[in-house]
């Protein structure tokens, strides 16, 4: 029961937030579900990988990779641009809290805390970016190879 609360509820919240932001960015139909599921799955990966890697930057990285892979697959299936699904599914991982807490430290004149929090925020953003970059680059390489193989026959 406790596990359910710790794992399922945050993912459910991430899912609901995904639906909300799908409306804001004008995603329609099945796309909304795909975005929201991506967000929920990503957060599940983040939570489940916590005991293994024990660093929220690494957790973000893994979750970003999973979300990226999920969006690439879904985009291929529906023949849509990947960005549509990617950006909304990534929302729960974006370090909005980091920006806010750094600002609070800066306001209180706590330079040390501010620098720590800022570096941590940048680290999280970097992990997110590298995770997405890795998967997208892989997909591009695979695609390019497949097109190369198809070209002589067509």
């Amino acid at each position, binding site marked *: 029961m406790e596990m359910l609360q710790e794992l399922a509820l*945050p993912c459910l*919240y*991430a899912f*609901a*937030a*995904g*639906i*909300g*932001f*799908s*409306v*804001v*960015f*004008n*995603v*329609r139909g099945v*796309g909304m579900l795909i975005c929201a599921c991506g967000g929920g799955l990503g957060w599940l990966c983040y939570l489940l990988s916590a005991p293994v890697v024990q660093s929220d930057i690494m957790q973000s990285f893994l979750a970003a990779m999973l979300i990226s892979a999920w969006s690439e697959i879904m985009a291929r299936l529906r*023949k*849509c*641009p990947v*960005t*549509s699904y*990617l*950006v909304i599914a*990534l*929302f*729960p991982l*974006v*370090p*909005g*809290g980091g*920006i*806010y*807490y*750094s*600002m*609070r430290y*800066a*306001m209180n004149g706590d330079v040390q805390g501010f620098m720590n929090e800022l570096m941590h925020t940048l680290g999280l*953003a970097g992990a*997110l*970016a*590298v995770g*997405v*970059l890795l998967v*997208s*680059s892989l997909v*591009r390489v695979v695609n390019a190879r497949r097109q190369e193989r198809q070209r002589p026959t067509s």
Partner: protein
Amino acid sequence: MELDYDKLLCLTAEIGYQLMESGAEIYRVEESMNRLLEAYGVTTGEVFAIPNCIIASLTTATGHALTQIRRMKAHGTDVDQLERYNDLCRRLCREAPPIEQALALVAETARQRRQWSLPTQLAGYFLGCGAFALFFGGNGRDMLCGGLCGVVIGLCMYFTAHWGANPFFRTIAASAVSALCAEILTAVGLGAHLDQIIIGALMALVPGIALTNAMRDVMAGDMVSGISKVAEALLIGGAIALGTALSLGMFHMLAGG
């Protein structure tokens, strides 16, 4: 029939412009325009795009050079529009209909633009921000407050867009108003955790899209676009912090805290 190069160039630039306006990455814009030119049999076309400018150029069969430049204004992300123009572009590349017909199809797509009404969008802001307030550890009352602050952000973004304000000013204004709203809601006793409410509402402003798109551009080799979008993401992050700090500072000064 002789190919009308002027119209083809207009068509290409228009498709590129519309794709970029709905939030496509640079490489998608360039690739789509290149494919379109190739579909009409122009192999001497060159396309160059950066976040605020699109240049399309081609040389006709008689050796005449034509160029069109489209300046891009600040724009948001409209996924539905992006998917429709992407589909349209694929279709044009596949079928290569006569140019008049293709231009009519583009105009038709622009006319059929579907957008949620303002109340529906605000409901989206409410759900998204409220869910994030819960997600960051707030309780049910925080969700309500986060949602309300999200609605305030939505209204703020809507009106500042109509006034033609620039994105940084809009972000500062929206985050300041929403933080003030969160302070008031907490002061009257509706919200329990100020931090969670503010962070939940701020999620509607964070530059996640700019950052992700920037990375995809860098990966595709468009360094200029990638770096300018990273700079945009950092500036927006700074604008969020500035707006929130402004509002929190003012509130504490006035409340004597």
